[in-house]
């Protein structure tokens, strides 16, 4: 693999790491979701960079486009769940969601 691929892998890993840290550490429900979006960016960056490194850009783009469509549906569903949660707990704090023992 060309050296530039490793550069993109580096940044993609940075995005994934930041997103995962935020997912574990943050409490606001909407902020948790922004963290998921950041993870999504890391993943799509990796996909396009891989396509670029292989010269297979078209296939990679087709995959990224589909990935983004999936992301939109996911965001819509998740935000609908979050809005419903606030109707119950009147709060966006994930610590209020502690009724189930896990």
């Amino acid at each position, binding site marked *: 693999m060309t050296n530039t691929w490793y*550069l993109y*892998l580096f940044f993609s890993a940075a995005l994934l790491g930041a997103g995962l840290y935020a997912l574990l550490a*943050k409490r606001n429900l909407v902020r948790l979701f922004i963290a998921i979006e950041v993870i999504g960016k890391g993943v799509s960056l990796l996909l396009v960079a891989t396509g670029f490194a292989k010269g297979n*850009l*078209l296939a990679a783009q*087709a995959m990224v486009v589909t990935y983004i469509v999936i*992301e939109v*549906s996911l965001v819509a*569903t998740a935000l609908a769940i979050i809005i419903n949660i606030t109707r119950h707990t009147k709060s966006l704090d994930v610590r209020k969601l502690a009724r189930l023992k896990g």
Partner: protein
Amino acid sequence: MIVQTALLIGLVLFSVLAVFLKDLIRAAISLAVASLLLGIIFFRLGASYAGVFEISVVAGLITVLFILTIALTNKAEEVRESRLANVIFPLFFVVFIAIDALVMKGLLQKIPALPSGPESGTFGEVLWKGRTLDLVGQIAVILAGVFSVLALFRKRDKHD
């Protein structure tokens, strides 16, 4: 190369800001800027379709959805984030980046790859004819999203 690296650093910077900014609306906008930068990175790599999609859908549509949610949950009480997590993050991130860079340096040239042949066709052909099942999947996931929103926002009738 310099421009590209600068854009990548900007991408990571704005993404981190998006998660750590206190005001949610500023966070959403920061996320939109990060998406914009990612779209530009895609363009410069030659992936114009992915770039267009990233900018119009992620920087556009998803940001709108976020701002909509923030507006609809405005009446919820403030959430105090853990100060400890905020303080630890810079340290964690620097260590993470350092390990990341070392791992990448170590992996240089280590991952084997088959040489790939030239790619044929246009993007349209590749998507519509080459990966048609993806489109069926896209339709399915859009249906799932639409029905989810319909189900989660339905009116509860009194006799249900």
